[in-house]
């Protein structure tokens, strides 16, 4: 048995993960994605109705009737699979149309689709930068960007999270490089805070650098017409490169893209390995994504409701005495600092029908444990009121209401 030795090794590793309290278990959902879902957890327990506060379904489009209809039509008209990468025989009219529409929506020259934004981030750097160039990244960029940067030979610089003075210092250090690229998330997924894109763009102009933003947690709803962080920060059309996903607000199925100047997109079509060696996006998802762009380009109703919901939930949770990470994105982290406390509260609110997950080291820094809640345009006030009510009851049980970082750490430790 060739696997015997490996099995033992993997069993030990898995035990270590479990002992460290870091073992991840899947919660099985027996319904379409939405705000009211039917969840089986722990495995084997009878499934129950809970309010979902942890999906990236910001606009509530994951199971939207018009999106589902467009997916059905796409399936009928363009088939199920393409059995090809893009450049052999995997490009249909709908793929090109989606790339054009994404460019218009994001305000860029051109767009190239990938199977996911992880693929977009993994593929971009090594395709367009070499060892003569420099990448200057925010410390808290998404894991897929870090992986992409590792695959690339460019010099790497890291600046402290959203610290513009530190970024400027790194830009100065990298002045000898042939090309410079500043890399940041638009909305940071763990804290829900927003990159200072206006200042970043100004520094980029001063120090002759390109700007790349991963706007996965922003596309579709940040900014007045939902174009993203660049619209919110008044630099629409001034960010060189946007990578983003169709797997969150934009229908939530899968797929991602790089939206950038024409020559860069063209180069990616020649060189980006996840584009060259992985299947094309399925026509059914492409067709539904086209509908999503139509829907959110016609009216801002959904992103407006999301903004209202976010303000309402933040205000009510603060009123109740929770320590929230400040911000205006629909990612609302309830800060608990201690990993066990985050797990206990997550478990207790789940008992009462509220589904939101605890995050702790190594997903976030030590002593920064939290429950990350995410608001959706599909939430009604009744959902949010119920969530606040349950959170408040459980928060009272652990005596953390009205308490800040120092007090909570004094009671529970880091």
């Amino acid at each position, binding site marked *: 048995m060739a696997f015997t030795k490996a099995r033992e090794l993997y069993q030990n590793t898995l035990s270590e993960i479990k002992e460290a309290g870091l073992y991840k278990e899947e919660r099985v959902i027996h319904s379409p994605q939405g705000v009211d879902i039917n969840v089986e957890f722990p495995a084997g327990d009878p499934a129950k109705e809970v309010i979902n506060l942890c999906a990236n379904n910001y606009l509530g489009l994951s199971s939207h009737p018009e999106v589902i209809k467009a997916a059905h039509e796409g399936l009928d008209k363009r088939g199920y699979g393409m059995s090809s990468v893009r450049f052999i025989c995997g490009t249909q009219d709908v793929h090109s149309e989606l790339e054009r529409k994404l460019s218009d929506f994001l305000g860029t020259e051109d767009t190239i689709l990938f199977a996911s934004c992880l693929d977009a981030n993994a593929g971009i750097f090594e395709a367009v930068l070499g060892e003569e160039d420099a990448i200057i990244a925010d410390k808290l960029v998404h894991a897929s960007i870090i992986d992409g940067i590792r695959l690339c030979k460019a010099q790497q610089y890291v600046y402290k999270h959203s610290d513009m003075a530190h970024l400027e210092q790194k830009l100065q250090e990298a002045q000898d490089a042939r090309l410079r690229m500043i890399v940041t998330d638009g909305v940071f997924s763990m804290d829900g805070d927003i990159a200072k894109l206006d200042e970043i763009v100004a520094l980029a102009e001063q120090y002759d650098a390109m700007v790349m933003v991963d706007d996965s947690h922003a596309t579709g709803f940040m900014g007045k017409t939902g174009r993203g962080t660049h619209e919110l920060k008044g630099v629409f059309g001034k960010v060189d490169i946007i990578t983003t996903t169709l797997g969150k607000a934009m229908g939530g199925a899968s797929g991602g893209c790089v939206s950038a100047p024409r020559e860069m997109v063209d180069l990616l079509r020649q060189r980006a390995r996840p584009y060259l060696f992985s299947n094309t996006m399925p026509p059914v998802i492409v067709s539904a994504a086209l509908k999503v762009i139509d829907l959110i380009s016609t009216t801002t109703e959904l992103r407006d409701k999301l903004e209202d919901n976010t303000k309402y939930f933040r205000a009510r949770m603060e009123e109740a005495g929770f320590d929230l990470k400040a911000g205006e994105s629909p990612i609302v982290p309830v800060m608990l600092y201690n990993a066990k406390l985050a797990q206990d509260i997550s478990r207790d609110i789940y008992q009462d029908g509220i589904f939101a997950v605890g995050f702790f080291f190594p997903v976030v820094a*030590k002593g920064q444990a939290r429950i990350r809640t995410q608001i959706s345009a599909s939430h009604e006030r009744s959902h949010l009121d119920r969530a606040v009510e349950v959170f408040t009851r459980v928060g009272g049980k652990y005596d953390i209401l009205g308490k800040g970082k120092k007090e909570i750490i004094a009671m529970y430790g880091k």
Partner: protein
Amino acid sequence: MNDIEKVKKDIIEFVINEFIDDEDEAEDIDENSALISSGIVDSFSMVSLKRFLEKKFELAIPDAKATPEAFDTVNNIIKLIDELKG
């Protein structure tokens, strides 16, 4: 202050300036503080720590030597530098 103490101080200062956001945490950093295993310096940021050391000590740290263990404390780093300087 002798040379070795000055070097330690320089490395600690670099770590604080480059990686620490919270002033309270900055005060706690000394030559025995865990930098990598505590998450202060993540593997992504290790690259800039490595570059700083290479520049400061005018040597090349082979990738095989630039392990999380070797970089975990300022004392470990000094040990590694001594070894490389031979």
